[in-house]
């Protein structure tokens, strides 16, 4: 049984005028059925407004579905009695680190989650230390979060989620505000949590390069799953992705353009190493 399973999931944003009458309905998620296995690394791509974040917020029970069902670790995410359990199982890391850090000290911030779960004090500190260690931020535990770099702040946010012992972490554009170094730090952390701790990862991003190591990619458009497959399968369809306002990793783009220029290059090249091998074969 999947850790996250949705059945014909739908979500509608309803706009109302001053009198409370419905003035418009936007269908942000439309008939989405997915099944994520424990330990998978899933990437979700899609243009602005395609429904990615709405889908993510339903997994975390921030939004409850208008239609269909969503199960997190076997629990119905729409069940109000299961709200806190769902949020403990599936943690979320948002785009802007400054909006999710509340503690005066790094360790306080990381302890906030388990404290809210009612974890005994001694265990809170154990969890805080263990999570900060995993994110290689232990030496900063007595620092003020304000003075950290963007990548470090995001790692503190991730540690805060880890301290709740989740089975799944959803990253909603965690690198959009970071410099290249910070971006690398965060993506490496996500991959390590997946590899070593076997935590299921769902990564929403606009940076194609960040998704090449995913097990599967879902591409969303108009609230639906428009494409699904391994990175190789998805990024082989350069034109289709461009139609969906997306792109491909730079190495894939170069390979695609070379193929169009007549070079015998295979589809689905994702990294510069693969491109090098393909060129070795034909040059």
């Amino acid at each position, binding site marked *: 049984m999947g850790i996250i399973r949705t059945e014909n999931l739908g979500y509608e944003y309803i706009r109302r005028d001053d009198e409370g009458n419905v003035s418009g309905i936007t269908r942000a998620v439309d008939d989405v059925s997915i099944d994520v296995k424990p330990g998978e690394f899933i990437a979700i791509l*899609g*243009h*602005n*407004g395609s429904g990615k974040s709405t889908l993510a917020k339903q997994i975390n029970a921030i939004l409850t579905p208008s239609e269909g069902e969503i199960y997190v670790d076997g629990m119905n995410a729409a069940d109000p009695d299961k709200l806190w359990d769902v949020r403990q199982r599936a943690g979320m890391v948002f*785009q802007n680190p400054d909006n999710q850090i509340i503690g005066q000290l790094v360790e306080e911030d990381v302890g906030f989650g388990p404290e809210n779960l009612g974890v005994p004090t001694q265990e809170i500190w154990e969890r805080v230390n263990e999570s900060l260690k995993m994110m290689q931020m232990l030496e900063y535990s007595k620092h003020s979060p304000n003075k950290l*770099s*963007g*990548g470090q702040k995001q790692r503190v946010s991730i540690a805060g989620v880890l301290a709740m012992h989740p089975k799944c972490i959803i990253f909603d*554009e965690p690198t*959009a*505000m*970071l*410099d*290249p*170094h*910070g*971006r690398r730090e965060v993506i490496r952390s996500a991959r390590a949590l997946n590899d070593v701790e076997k935590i299921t990862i769902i990564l929403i991003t*606009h940076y*194609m*390069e960040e998704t090449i190591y995913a097990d599967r990619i879902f591409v969303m458009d108009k609230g639906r799953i428009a494409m699904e497959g391994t990175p190789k399968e998805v990024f082989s369809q350069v034109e289709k992705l*461009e139609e969906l*306002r*997306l*792109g491909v*990793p*730079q*190495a894939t*783009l*170069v390979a695609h*353009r*070379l193929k169009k*220029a*007549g*070079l015998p290059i295979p589809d689905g090249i994702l990294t*510069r*190493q693969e*491109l*090098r091998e393909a*060129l*070795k074969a*034909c*040059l």
Partner: protein
Amino acid sequence: MSMTLEHVNCIYSADTNHSVHALKDICLNIEDGEFIGLIGHTGCGKSTLVQHLNGLIKPTDGLITYDGQDIYGKGFNRKELRGHVGLVFQYPEHQLFENDVFADVCFGPANLGLDRKEVELRAYEALHAVGFPDDDFYSSPFELSGGQKRRVAIAGVLAMKPRILILDEPTAGLDPKGREDILELISKLHRENNMTIILVSHSMDDVAGYAERLIVMDHGSIVYDDVPREVFMNVRELEAMGLALPEVTYIMRTLKRNGYDVDDTLTTVDEAVDAIVALYKSRHS
């Protein structure tokens, strides 16, 4: 209208034990019609620097001149300077506030004290310049997509008719097509109106594709100031600063290391494709 900075220093919270030396002895000359990319890791002083250019932050010491005049000299009109040097902040759509798009774009020029007709004409031109559809002029800015909101926010600055346009990470959070659209728009303003552009960015691919001059900052100092290709030759130094090369440059370097005779300083996809195709043809003819 050129702008110069001479030995500019900025110290935040000077005279306290929290003082931060954010800009260290910056000397810079910005000529008319340049397209400058400004890069550096988070906290390196980029945003502090650009806020000095339109007088939002006063330097702790040093001289800033616009068109040869000291911007803190007697009688210099700094309000007018802010019309000439337009600054688009990060996530500018967070600053949209009016009921409709058109009113929002009118806000800037109206504050310059222009008459109503001129204000509306400018707003109209600015919205056209960013490619915003006429039909949506009177919709609420809050109902637009992320990319459209950002266009409106940029139009709000364009309506002030700036000569220098500074954009702080204008593509953050946008999808790939949205990123490309905004960069094309900036490039068009540069080409067609000869507007001076300063693009602050974390994307090496973006600055490599568009900027003619690249300034790299680290710990409050300018470390490199050259054409992108020259700057990106300093691989180790850039990586140590938390930056990177454009992905294309990494690809070309990989090929070169494997014994192929290619130029490993190329920075754009077009250049790389041309170079590899030429190499292929030379070996198969």
